[in-house]
């Protein structure tokens, strides 16, 4: 019911919305919960386990009951807190976890079977017969469990992430936070003030207590105006600080457009739905306030039973009275304000029940002292409560009970770095342990100081402390007048009695469950939590942890501090995966690297595949070719018979200079490079310190102190980091410098018997065996552009690699293709490149798979005995030289089924196909059009000693089972005449 002349948004624009299909009207500035209460709606959802009818308990993000679903399809948003969702025109919300409707939910039968659904019941049954778990029990449990539902469609909204930096991060904008921000701001500190709510002010918006002689919200407005005017203060509303991380890093979630009509957050618009902030703060002031805690009594979970502070918020901020005959049940003075405020607003107070005999008298309404509420009635809305006092039990008609068991300081963030809160007995609450988060100071209610004056004072003091550490002068803050009432409270956690008294509303954990857990010796608070699931619901126990802890302490005869503290982990409030993963959809996931030839390959219809971050052409289909094999075979053949062009720019290229460059390479590679003549290229092998092969490639000597190294595409980054490591960490005195030139040069392989002919006229000098011998290299001018030429071959053919500055890459690629095609050649892609190198037994990372040694690859000859090199000592371990290691061989099929598949395993014919008889596996396979049959490379136990033997190849995954002959890995032109000639 909305009260005329009440609330801070009175007279605001009316907004129409719908709940479960029913259309209603609220006011701008309302939360969905406020608008529902104003429209007399209390039944909002159903509980997790028993599907009990539930209403609105709180007025904040800690709400455990009033979770709804908003939107449909790609915008369907489950588990939205009605107490946080701001009203907007056209908002459509619906209840969840109920069928067919929230009023009539068939799963509510669970409530009748409650006696059998006690703590941990599922650990004790559903075990017979074993197969029934997956087939029967579990599907039923899964169907019943869960809250809201995802639509299964891709999210249509945008999200973003951002970084922010500040001297002081103030978390919370209540009296403590505002005072801290004001003090720090005036001192010139770089301040960020984060407030989870849509409006700054915290409890000042919900209470009627004055600050500085004016209404709290008015004082807040003045402070905010001053902060706004400062250049050094950043105000962030709708922004919840979600986590504290190391060295002053904080995560924060900004709800950018949840409060706007949905069209604003559609892909068409660029306005993100949420922004996840990474804030680096030198210091932080935690002013997160406190969360009021319920009292456990029989049937304390009915719609209409709310937190006393929340009732005040609905009344004073939104002008909404949640009931017409309100009762209050409390163990502390503060809750009496609820009665006072409601009464002043003309709402009938049926009774105030205070568990303390020395409770204050309050106003002109009955206060029942030393009494407790021990039961309630009303299925879908509270109708009455039962009060137990010295006079016995009496029933009181009421449609709203405002309860308060006291307040729990919001210590959550101080637990994120494993800090343990400490018990403050006089406040009956856990408060932050000092220094739990380096650089963070707690102030106000989150520090167990509950008066407004106390909060203002601590906020100013916290800021002063931080300013001092920053070396900034703080002028003594002029603290405004405010109430400084003592926080009078007497312990009351659970009202004794029969029946179920709820602790964790959402997960349906009752006092009985906690007691049973204790009986079953789950005495550790962590055991109790895990056994009963208390604190594991969407509110992470914000409403229930301390009370549950107290009940456990009581049940195990220990004090609360003895029983232990509960810990909280990030995030403080649940964060959409889409927000923390913002920007990763589709191409945003990882950078895309494109070759200069990419566009030209596209126009030629190349099938392009991602190789690491790069895109490379797999093959270039010609008209009439219906599958990749046809294209691949043709491309292999044109290289063997004419000339092929392939973009090889993805290979890592590192420019190495300096007086010690040769020495450096000798240390890096297993073989020697200092002896390499200028103008020549040499193949090299690199080990890790553990003695296994890291990478291979060719390195060219361009001058006395100048080399250019080639790495594999896959290891380019790793090798660069490795070289920096060796240079900086291991050999800092050696004079050597290197720079990646992978991106500087576009490099193309020109391979095939007609490659030299192709170069005629392309270079302005003549190309012949003398000018460019095999493994020769040097500068060359290509069509007037200074580039480099390397006579190296990865195909076994007479071949060159041409490098030009990348700006000319596309143009040169076109020119090379034009010339090649005129000679019956053309472009070849990764598939053909792969077949060509397998035919020659040349290895890639399919073979250099991290677990092989030079010995396995048959390259032990490259391990220099004359010099030291990185990885040498460990490479001599017996295990890395053992004869029975799997070593590289070639395979060719024999018998009928001619098939070789990568990943297949090898067996000795006659052995049964079991792991214990496993002889090896195929690393690379392909069809060789040159030889007219499939070929493969494999690692085989004692491989080189088994040339000529037959092995059985078995591939269960692809259904291949064939015999192969073990051959040399070099299938084609073993003498290498074609490359040299």
């Amino acid at each position, binding site marked *: 019911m909305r009260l005329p002349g009440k609330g801070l948004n009175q007279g605001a624009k009316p907004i129409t919305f719908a709940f479960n299909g029913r259309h209603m009207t609220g006011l701008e500035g309302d939360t969905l919960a406020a608008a529902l209460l104003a429209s007399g709606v209390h039944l909002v959802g159903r509980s997790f386990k028993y599907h009990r009818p539930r209403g609105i308990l709180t007025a904040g993000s800690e709400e455990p009951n009033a979770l709804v679903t908003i939107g449909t399809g790609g915008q369907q948003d489950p588990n939205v807190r009605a107490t946080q969702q701001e009203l907007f025109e056209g908002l459509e919300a619906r209840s969840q976890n109920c069928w067919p409707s929230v009023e009539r939910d068939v799963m509510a039968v669970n409530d009748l079977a409650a006696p059998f659904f006690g703590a941990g019941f599922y650990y004790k049954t559903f075990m017979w017969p074993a197969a029934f778990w997956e087939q029967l029990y579990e599907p039923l449990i899964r169907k019943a469990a869960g809250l809201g539902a995802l639509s299964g469609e891709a999210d249509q909204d945008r999200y973003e992430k951002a970084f922010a930096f500040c001297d002081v991060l103030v978390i919370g904008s209540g009296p403590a936070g505002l005072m801290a921000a004001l003090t720090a701001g005036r001192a010139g500190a*770089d301040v960020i003030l984060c407030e989870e709510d849509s409006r700054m002010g915290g409890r000042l918006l919900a209470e009627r207590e004055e600050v500085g002689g004016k209404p709290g919200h008015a004082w807040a407005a003045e402070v905010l105006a001053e902060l706004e005017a400062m250049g050094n203060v950043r105000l962030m509303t709708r922004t919840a600080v979600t986590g504290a991380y190391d060295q002053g890093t904080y995560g924060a979630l900004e709800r950018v457009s949840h409060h706007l009509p949905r069209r604003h957050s559609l892909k068409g618009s660029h306005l993100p739905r949420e922004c996840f902030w990474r804030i680096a703060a030198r210091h932080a002031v935690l002013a997160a306030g406190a969360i009021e805690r319920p009292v456990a009594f029989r049937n304390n979970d009915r719609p209409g039973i709310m937190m006393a502070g929340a009732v005040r918020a609905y009344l004073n901020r939104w002008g909404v009275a949640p009931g017409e005959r309100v009762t209050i049940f409390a163990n502390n003075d503060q809750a009496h304000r609820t009665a006072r405020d409601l009464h002043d607003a003309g709402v009938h107070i049926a009774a105030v029940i205070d568990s303390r005999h020395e409770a204050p008298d309050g106003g002109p309404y009955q206060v029942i002292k030393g009494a407790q509420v021990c039961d309630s009635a009303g299925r879908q809305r509270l109708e009455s409560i039962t009060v137990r006092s010295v006079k016995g039990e009496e029933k009181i008609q009421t449609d709203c009970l405002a309860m308060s068991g006291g307040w729990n300081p919001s210590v959550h963030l101080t637990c994120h770095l494993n800090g343990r809160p400490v018990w403050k007995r006089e406040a009956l609450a856990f408060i932050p342990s000092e220094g739990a988060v380096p650089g963070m100071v707690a102030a106000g209610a989150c520090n167990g100081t509950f008066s407004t004056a106390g909060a203002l004072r601590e906020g100013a003091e916290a800021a002063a402390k931080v300013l001092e550490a920053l070396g900034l002068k703080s002028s003594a803050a002029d603290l405004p007048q405010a109430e400084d009432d003592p926080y009078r409270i007497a312990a009351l956690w659970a009202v004794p009695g029969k029946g179920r008294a709820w602790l964790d509303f959402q997960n349906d954990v009752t006092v009985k469950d906690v007691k049973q857990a204790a009986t079953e010796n789950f005495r550790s608070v962590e055991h109790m939590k895990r056994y009963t699931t208390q604190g594991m619901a969407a509110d992470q126990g914000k409403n229930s942890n301390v009370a549950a802890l107290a009940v456990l302490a009581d049940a195990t005869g220990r004090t609360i501090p003895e029983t232990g503290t509960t810990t909280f982990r990030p995030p403080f409030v649940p964060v959409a995966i889409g927000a923390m993963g913002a*920007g990763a959809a589709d*191409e*945003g996931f990882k950078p*895309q690297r494109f070759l200069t030839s990419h566009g030209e390959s596209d126009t030629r219809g190349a099938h392009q595949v991602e190789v690491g971050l790069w895109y490379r052409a797999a093959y270039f289909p010609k008209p009439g070719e219906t599958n990749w094999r046809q294209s691949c075979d043709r491309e292999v053949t044109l290289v063997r018979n004419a000339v092929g062009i392939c973009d090889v720019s993805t290979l890592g290229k590192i420019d190495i200079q*300096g007086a010690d460059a040769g020495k450096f390479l000798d240390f890096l590679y297993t073989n020697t490079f200092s002896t390499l003549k200028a103008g020549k290229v040499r193949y090299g092998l690199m080990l890790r310190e553990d003695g296994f092969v890291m990478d291979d490639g060719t390195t060219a000597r361009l001058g006395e102190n100048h080399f250019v190294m080639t790495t594999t595409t896959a290891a380019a980054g790793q090798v660069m980091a490795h070289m920096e490591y060796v240079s900086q960490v291991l050999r800092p005195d050696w004079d050597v*410098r290197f720079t990646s030139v992978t991106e500087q040069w576009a490099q193309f392989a020109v391979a095939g018997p007609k490659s030299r002919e192709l170069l005629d006229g392309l270079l302005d000098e003549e190309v012949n065996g003398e000018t460019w011998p095999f493994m020769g290299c040097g500068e060359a001018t290509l069509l*007037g552009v200074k580039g480099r030429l390397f006579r190296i071959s990865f195909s076994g053919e007479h071949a060159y690699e041409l490098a030009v500055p990348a700006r000319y890459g596309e143009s040169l690629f076109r020119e090379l293709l034009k010339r090649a095609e005129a000679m019956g050649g053309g472009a070849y892609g990764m598939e053909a490149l792969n077949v060509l190198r397998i035919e020659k037994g040349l290895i890639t990372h399919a073979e250099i798979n991290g677990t092989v040694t030079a010995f396995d690859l048959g390259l032990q000859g490259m391990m220099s005995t004359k010099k030291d090199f990185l990885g040498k000592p460990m490479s001599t371990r017996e295990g890395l030289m053992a004869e029975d290691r799997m070593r590289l061989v070639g395979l060719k099929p024999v018998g009928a089924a001619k098939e070789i598949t990568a990943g297949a395993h090898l067996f000795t014919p006659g052995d049964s196909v079991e792991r214990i008889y496993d002889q090896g596996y195929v690393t690379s396979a392909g069809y060789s059009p040159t030889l007219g049959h499939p070929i493969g490379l494999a690692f085989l136990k004692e491989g080189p000693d088994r040339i000529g033997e037959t092995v059985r190849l078995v591939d269960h995954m692809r259904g291949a089972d064939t015999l192969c002959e073990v051959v040399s890995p070099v299938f084609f032109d073993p003498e290498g005449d074609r490359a040299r000639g």
Partner: protein
Amino acid sequence: MAELIAKSPCDGLLPVTVGGMSLTEEDPGAMWAVAPFNGEDKALSQALEAAHGMAFPAANRATGKAGSRAVWFGRGMALLMGPEPDAKLAEHAALTDQSDAWAVVRLEGQGAEDVLARLVPVDLRAAVFKRGHTVRSELKHMMASVTRTGPQAFQIMVFRSMAKTLVHDLKTAMEAVAARG
């Protein structure tokens, strides 16, 4: 005789204008990595001064001016942007041509700082990151160099092959910033 045609890294991708912000490709001229050899730092800096009128930049700083800059490029390295390096520099430093290795763009306009705050994990606000300041950091997941060239202008560099992603990421952030109004 055929001749080779040059193509810039962001060819066909830029310019882009969003709200009051513009993203354009820069033509930096020549770019050479200059890495002084052991004990040659001072000599190199003098040679650089003599030949190109600018000192070797301190860490996180750029020297020179538009058209002829030396941008600190990480440990023991600067990127000489504009002129071809004087041959004498080679006596004191390793010189490596990078003219084609990097995509160079200019982000300018109201909100440019906010755009970079969505991509770069370093505080680039004017109060701490002034004209002539430079950082090596990452832009989203790309290795990047960012230099402030004006009150609301930045020079941003990533590897040439990532130009498309650079434009995609910057444009997306520009749109989000503009949408906030």
